[in-house]
C-alpha cells in the first residue's frame, strides 16, 4: 500500500538478428515515498532497460515485455493507455540521463525549455513560467541571468544541472537518474550529488539512482539493489549491503575496487567475462565467475533467500555466506 513503485517479476527481452537478448530476467523492486534506491551493476546488467520500462520508453520491437507488472502509485504502468502514460512522464516520473543533451533541445534557450515544462504541467501565464524557470535555475546553482543561454554555452556539469531543474520543474513523485554524474569530473559530481540530496530533503521526491559506483551509493542512497544478469541478486539497506554483504557477486564488486586506505599490490578482479545476455549460463547466472561456485550452482536456479528481514539474496548458499561474512567481520 505504501509502496510508491513496485516492480514485480519484470521480464524484458530484445529480439535481434543475432538472437534474443535476455536483458531483464525477473526483476522485482519496491520503493517507498522518500526512498533513494541505488540500482547498481556492471555493463549490460539491465539497469537502463529496467528504467526505460518504468517510463515505457523502450522501442517495441526490438524490445518486448515478456511478463511482469510495474505498479506506480496504484497503477500498473504496463496497462495504462499511452495518453495516460504521457501525462505520467514528466509530471509524476522524471528521468535524468547520463548525457544531458538527451533531454535538452540545442536550439532553445535553457530558461525557455524549463518554462515550457512548467506551462505544460501548471495553469500559469508565460511570464509566470519564465519567472519560475529563473527560480529553478538558481535553485540548481545557475545564475538567473543565464536563462537566455543555449545549452552549448554551458559546461557538462551545468547542462546536467539544467536537466535536473527541468526534472524538478513539475515536482515529480519519482526521479529516475541513469548514471547522472558518470560523465562528470569528481568535483562537479560532488556538487551535483550534494544538490540532489538537498533538493530531495526539501521536496521529499523519491530517487531511483542507477550507477556502477558504490562510493556514490554510500553517499546518496538509503536502499541498494545489486543487479547481475538482469536479476536483483541482493537487496537491502545501506548498512545491510555494505556491512553484511552476502552475495558472492556483491563481495567481489567491493573486492575489485582499488582502495584509498589499504595498500595492496594486486587487485582482486572478478574472473571471466561479463554476463552474456544472448546465451545466459544455466543455473545461477553468476556461477561461471563465482569464486565459490559448486556443482549445484550450474544446475539449479537459486531462489531468493531472506537472510534477515529486508535483506533478500539470490544464492543457493545465501544463509551460509551471510553467517560466514558476519563471522569474518567480528
Amino acid at each position, binding site marked *: 500500500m505504501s509502496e510508491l513503485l513496485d516492480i514485480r517479476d519484470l521480464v524484458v527481452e530484445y529480439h535481434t538478428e543475432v538472437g534474443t537478448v535476455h536483458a531483464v530476467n525477473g526483476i522485482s523492486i519496491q520503493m517507498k515515498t522518500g526512498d533513494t534506491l541505488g540500482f547498481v551493476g556492471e555493463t549490460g546488467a539491465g539497469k537502463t532497460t529496467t528504467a526505460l520500462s518504468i517510463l515505457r520508453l523502450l522501442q517495441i520491437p526490438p524490445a518486448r515485455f515478456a511478463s511482469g507488472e510495474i505498479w506506480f502509485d496504484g497503477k500498473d504502468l504496463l496497462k495504462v493507455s499511452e495518453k495516460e502514460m504521457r501525462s505520467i512522464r514528466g509530471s509524476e516520473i522524471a528521468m535524468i540521463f547520463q548525457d544531458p543533451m538527451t533531454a535538452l533541445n540545442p536550439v532553445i534557450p535553457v530558461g525557455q525549455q524549463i518554462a515550457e515544462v512548467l506551462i505544460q504541467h501548471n495553469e500559469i501565464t508565460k511570464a509566470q513560467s519564465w519567472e519560475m524557470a529563473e527560480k529553478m535555475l538558481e535553485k540548481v546553482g545557475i545564475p538567473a541571468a543565464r536563462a537566455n543561454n543555449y545549452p552549448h554555452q554551458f559546461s557538462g556539469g551545468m547542462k546536467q544541472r539544467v536537466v535536473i531543474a527541468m526534472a524538478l520543474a513539475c515536482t515529480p513523485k519519482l526521479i529516475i537518474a541513469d548514471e547522472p554524474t558518470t560523465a562528470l569530473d569528481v568535483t*562537479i559530481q560532488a556538487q551535483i550529488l550534494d544538490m540532489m540530496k538537498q533538493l530531495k530533503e526539501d521536496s521529499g521526491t523519491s530517487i531511483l539512482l542507477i550507477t*556502477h*559506483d558504490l562510493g556514490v551509493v554510500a*553517499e546518496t542512497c538509503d536502499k541498494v539493489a545489486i543487479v547481475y544478469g538482469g536479476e536483483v541478486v541482493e537487496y537491502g539497506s545501506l*548498512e545491510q549491503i555494505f556491512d553484511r554483504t552476502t552475495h558472492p557477486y556483491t563481495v567481489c564488486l567491493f573486492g575489485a575496487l582499488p582502495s*584509498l586506505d589499504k595498500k595492496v599490490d594486486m587487485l582482486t*578482479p572478478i574472473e571471466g567475462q561479463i554476463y552474456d545476455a544472448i546465451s545466459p549460463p544455466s543455473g545461477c547466472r553468476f556461477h561461471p565467475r563465482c569464486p565459490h561456485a559448486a556443482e549445484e550452482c550450474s544446475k539449479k536456479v537459486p531462489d531468493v533467500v531472506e537472510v534477515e528481514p529486508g535483506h533478500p539474496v539470490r544464492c543457493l548458499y545465501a544463509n551460509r555466506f551471510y553467517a560466514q561474512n558476519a563471522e569474518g567481520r567480528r
Partner: protein
Amino acid sequence: MNQIDNCLEVRNLKKYFKTPAGALHAVDDVTFDIPLGSTLGVVGESGCGKSTLGRVVLGLLDATDGSVVFQGEDITNASKKRRKELRTDMQLIFQDPFSSLDPRMCVSDLIAEPLHVYKIYKSGVDLEKRVADLMDTVGLARRLAYAFPHELDGGRRQRIGVARALALNPKFIVCDEPVSALDVSIQAQILNLLKTLQRDLGLTYMFITHDLSVVKHISRDILVMYMGCMMEKSPADELFEHPMHPYTKGLLSAIPIPSIHVKRKKILMKGEITSPVEPEPGCRFAPRCPYATEQCRKEMPVLVEVTPGHFTACHQVKGEQ
C-alpha cells in the same frame, strides 16, 4: 648520475594551441622526472591537459617550449626519422580500445600490425610466433586469434591495445585512461596486467587518469594538473596523507568512498573549470580557491619543494613554511 636513473626528464614543457580567441595554454610549464621502471600518475579534471602532455612527451605533438629528454637523449626537436625509430621505444595505450581498433581486422592481425609496419620479422613463422607470445603475455586465449573486436568485451579489447603497445618491445608507455571505460571487475584485471608487465619487462609508465583511487594504486609518484599547470607533485602515499594544494585537497575530498563508516567533510569547490585561453597572470585555480588573496590573482606561484620530494605551487602553502 641522474640521467641514467631516469627514463624521462621533462623540463618546463609548454604546449599552446592557436584558437580564434587566442592561445590556449593546454600544457603550461610542466616539469618532472620518471625514474626507470616506475609509474608517474597524472591526474586532473577534464581538459586540464593530461592527454596533450602525453602526446607532447611522445612527440605526437610538437612542444611550444621546454624539453623532453628520453634515456639521456633530448628528443624535443627530433627529426622525422628519429621520431619513427623512437616509436619502438615509446608507446601509447588509449582509453577506448574499440574506437582505436580497425573493426575489419581480427585479433592476430591487429597485434601483428605494428610488427608489419616496422618490418620486424622477415619470416611469417617468426611473426606468428611473436603474435602468439604476445597473446599469452596479455592473457588473450589463442582461440581468439581470429575473433573481431566487436565480438569481444571491453576488457579483452583493452588487452589487444596492450599487446599492440608491447609488440615493438617499448621501454616507456603512456597509458591514457586505459581503464576508464571498463567495469570495476574488468578494470582490476587490466590494472593487474599492467603491473605484472612492468615488473617482468621493466617498463616505465606515465599513467593518465581522472580516477584518484586508480592512480593511487598504480603510481609511485603523482602529478596533479589544473588548467595546464602543475599544482602539486609528490610520492603517491604522501599526496593522499598530506595534500598541500587547496585544489588537491578539494579533489581528494570529492572522491566518493564506498564505505558507510568513513565520513569525511567535503570541500565543495564553487564554480566551473573554464578553458585556459589567454589566461590571466595569477594562479589558475585562484577564481575557485577559497583561500585566494590579491597576490594569488596577480602572480603565478612557482613550484616549491615543501618537504623532500613533495612539490606544490601555491602562495598560501609557501606562506605557512
